[in-house]
């Protein structure tokens, strides 16, 4: 399985994702420059965290028009796996591959901390190593992670089980006190209706080895690989 990590000017988690996939999980992985226009030959694209284009105008707004993005959008629309982490999630929202938008954190602080997440859907290509309701610990680091969607969109997300992660406490309780940024419904990650594009504010690449303080992120990447290998076995 071959991964591509897209590097925008201002990405700063690209090397962490590359390390997680290449060194920790032992998968073939390449950097893809934002000026490239071809993603042929890749099985999963990762849009990493950072501050693409300085977050000018809105986080992800300018990156969404980078030369590589039409290829990313085509790849996603034809069923390719796309994972957007933090700034990558913001770019996917701006690109319309996921519904909703990000606002500034309600606390107005840049939040850099460990968070507990409740896995709301363990049946996606990105979460199949988790069981539904499981509590995982993955850190966040953002100033604009206050997810917003209008009431109709939220209903749709809930009905179709597109909310994948919610901020909770270590017991899995989802309350206003466990919400670090004001996101509606404590939403930390969502998937598209088709189930191949996941956006999440927490950083799984920052917890892939015990030396980093946790390994729950490793399971997310391992889920992707398991899913892919399962599909290969079925000859899909």
């Amino acid at each position, binding site marked *: 399985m071959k991964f591509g990590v897209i590097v925008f000017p201002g990405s700063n988690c690209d090397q962490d994702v590359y390390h997680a996939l290449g060194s920790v999980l032992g998968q073939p992985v390449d950097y893809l420059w934002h000026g490239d226009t071809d993603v042929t030959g890749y099985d999963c694209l990762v849009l990493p965290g950072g501050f693409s284009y300085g977050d000018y105008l809105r986080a992800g*707004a300018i990156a969404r028009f980078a030369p590589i993005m039409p290829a990313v959008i085509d790849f996603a629309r034809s069923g390719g796996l796309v994972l957007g982490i933090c700034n990558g999630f913001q770019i996917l*929202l701006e690109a319309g591959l996921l519904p909703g938008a990000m606002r*500034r954190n*309600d606390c107005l602080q840049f939040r850099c901390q460990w968070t507990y997440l409740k896995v709301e859907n363990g049946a996606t290509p990105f979460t199949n190593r988790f069981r539904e309701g499981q509590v995982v610990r993955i850190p966040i680091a953002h100033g604009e992670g*206050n997810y917003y969607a209008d009431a109709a969109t939220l209903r749709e997300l809930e009905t179709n089980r597109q909310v994948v992660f919610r901020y909770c406490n270590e017991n899995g309780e989802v309350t206003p006190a466990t919400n670090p940024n004001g996101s509606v419904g404590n939403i930390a990650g969502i998937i598209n209706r088709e189930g191949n594009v996941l956006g999440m504010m927490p950083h799984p690449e920052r917890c892939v080895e015990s030396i980093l303080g946790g390994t729950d992120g490793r399971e997310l990447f391992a889920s992707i690989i398991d899913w892919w290998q399962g599909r290969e076995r079925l000859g899909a």
Partner: protein
Amino acid sequence: MLLAKIYVTLKPGVLDPQGEAVMGGLKAMGYEGITAVRVGKYLEVQLDLDDREKAGQQVEEMCRRLLANPVIEQYRYTLEEPAGLSTEESPRG
């Protein structure tokens, strides 16, 4: 030449943490009777166009595609002759 003055603001009802903080600051300074503060963006785009209709269409498209996020923001704009060319007063302050 035309100058587009574009105002991008959060839609009514969308929480504005920055506005809330600014309001808190103003109140702390002693200003009374403030009921709301909303923070938005102001952009100036210079266009090498004289056709106002064409310029308007371009600015509309720019706003829809990039300058505003229609999920949470709204926009409005004016088209003016750039300062120096116009007979309008120059900005003060």
